[in-house]
């Protein structure tokens, strides 16, 4: 045998989230009165959904305080939770807060602080020739029907009833969903479980579910591309991807019966309907209110309440305090919605509980 072409069929992918240990030595002059974070390199990992926002924000924060560098590795919400539990990162990020089992693994509910970091909303993007952006109207019932596979063709009478004036083609509906586990899927299936008893009993909600119909694509980008490539396709996509790639998206009927095109403002309106949220009561899908975008949700950041390294911990809470307040302006640039004032307040109160050897690390006045 002269040549043997032997392809190694097994590839092992090792994901290492290493803790940045470098500490810069130069500290800039302290501004008058304003607390300045100490020099530190912070490491975070987790959800992909808010990654564009975190990237914009950490860059802006570093311009403001050059002594603090923040790294963020978007490996998925599950990776964010497990990296935090194994203490290989300073903060984790997830689209769904840690559940009781995960909290127990991380040392108990009292050991971890979870804060809402940003707010996003989802669109139903479609590929139908002759049906322009926002022209297609979908109700909770038709959305559930399409994703359950009971509505199979675009000319279905149920769809025609809500879309008088629009000619929907005689074309099979190709449903596209996420194949990888994701917070985007969690929020969408949470929505379907809320509006459809059928969906709740047959499928349920989760970061991965057993889809009755359709095909899966990996990541928001691949779902968006698959929809763009497939005539007759429809799928749920994070709003930012829809706006950035100029996809056509449906008007969605919200809880009040009004048809809205999902937008950051719609997400803020939906969030404003809930005075407080916490890691066990955080769902804001199908929110009441005339302007509410129905498929909206928060994204979360997690850190340990007791910080072993005081310097790092101080820089971390300062960064997060900035992220949920001044940093929110960077969310709008990348099509996420700003946090409502009441949630910012809750976040800062939570951050003030973070300590190192018994000392509170965040010394800002309690929000009123």
């Amino acid at each position: 045998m002269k040549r043997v072409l032997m392809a190694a069929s097994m590839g092992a992918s090792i994901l290492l989230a290493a803790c940045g240990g470098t500490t810069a030595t130069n500290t800039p002059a302290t501004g008058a009165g304003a607390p300045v974070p100490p020099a530190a390199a912070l490491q975070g990992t987790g959800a992909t959904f808010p990654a564009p926002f975190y990237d914009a924000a950490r860059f802006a924060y570093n311009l403001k305080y050059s002594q603090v560098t923040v790294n963020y590795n978007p490996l998925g919400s599950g990776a964010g939770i497990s990296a935090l539990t194994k203490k290989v990162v300073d903060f984790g990020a997830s689209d769904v807060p840690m559940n009781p089992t995960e909290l127990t693994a991380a040392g108990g509910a009292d050991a971890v602080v979870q804060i809402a970091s940003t707010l996003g909303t989802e669109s139903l993007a479609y590929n139908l020739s002759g049906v322009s952006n926002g022209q297609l109207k979908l109700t909770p019932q038709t959305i559930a029907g399409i994703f359950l596979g009971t509505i199979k063709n675009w000319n279905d009478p149920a769809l025609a009833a809500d879309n008088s004036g629009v000619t929907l083609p005689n074309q099979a509906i190709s449903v596209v969903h996420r194949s990888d586990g994701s917070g985007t899927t969690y929020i969408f299936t949470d929505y379907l479980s809320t509006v459809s008893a059928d969906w709740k009993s047959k499928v349920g909600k989760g970061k991965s579910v057993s889809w009755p119909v359709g095909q899966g694509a990996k990541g928001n980008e691949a779902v968006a591309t698959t929809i763009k490539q497939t005539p007759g396709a429809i799928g749920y996509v994070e709003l930012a991807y829809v706006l950035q790639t100029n996809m056509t998206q449906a008007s969605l009927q919200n809880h009040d019966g009004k048809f809205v095109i999902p937008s950051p403002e719609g997400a803020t309106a939906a969030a404003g309907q809930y005075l407080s949220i916490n890691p066990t009561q955080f769902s804001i899908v199908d929110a009441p209110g005339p302007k509410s975008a129905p498929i909206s949700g928060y994204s979360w950041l997690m850190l340990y309440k007791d910080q072993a390294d005081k310097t790092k911990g101080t820089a971390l809470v300062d960064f997060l305090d900035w992220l949920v307040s001044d940093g929110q302006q960077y969310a709008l640039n990348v099509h996420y919605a700003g946090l409502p004032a009441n949630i910012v307040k809750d976040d800062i109160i939570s951050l003030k509980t973070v300590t190192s050897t018994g000392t509170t690390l965040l010394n800002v006045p309690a929000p009123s």
Partner: protein
Amino acid sequence: MVPPPLVAASRQRRLVSGDRVFSVIAYGAAGLIMLIAAIFIIALVVPALPAVTKFGLGFFTSRTWDPVRNDFGALAPIYGTLVTSAIALLIAFPIGLGAALFLAEDARLQLLRGPLSFLIELLAGIPSVVIGLWAFFILTALLRDKVDPFLQHALGFLPLFRGTPTGYGFLTAGLVLAIMVLPIMIALSRDVIRAVPRELREASLALGATNAETTWSVILPYARVGITGAVLLSLGRALGETIAVTMVIGNNVQISASLFATGYTLPSVIANEFTEANGNVYLGSLFYLGVVLVVITIVVNVLARLLIWRFSGSARATA
């Protein structure tokens, strides 16, 4: 008088100690490989245990994959893996064998042989993600708009070609795999055919057989075992291919007779779901799939090796 030693004693001692150092390094390297293999097996089986204890052998017959209810079964991904690999081999076998015969046998086009061999090796060197990218953007649309409607028109009476073609699914994934295993198929078959003793060929021609008759009745039967080995090695490659398949299979846990339907393969499930697989049973089920895949791949590869080894051995003995 004793003749002087060929090598001075001091140098001999140095050689001996050099030998010793070398053998220690060699044994160490060999041992390290075994250690890595052992660690790998343990690291694969131990995390799979929660799923193994919960589902047992029922894992192989259940077609449910429901992360919400923590109920998992491997039947759909096993089916997808086998179907896509079978399509790949059905396409790659005749093309690969034909190309191999041309490369090994036909002397009339000597000039083409070099460039063609080079091209085949080039094809083998294209990273699978690049093939996947091409398939995702170009092949899916081509199949959906041209090939699938034609197949449906011509062979639509078969359950294999029913349903709405979307460009994604078993057929597309099988085609992509066929492209990826072709170089292996061609290169191995060519080497096996070349190893057929010249005397057999000449004897057949001397008896008045034509080139085609010689190929059909002498060369192919002789090389049969080796070609089977080439097929099995191609199969081994097809079974484990992940990224390119994930991009076009449609990633849907279902078993369908239609080749236009979307499906799932063992490596694709793992690649898609490991980041968010929370809970021991869910993650364990992914590792369980990994164990299934490793076992299938090892069995196929060992069979292939044995066949090729047997062929080369007998070829050498007769030569």
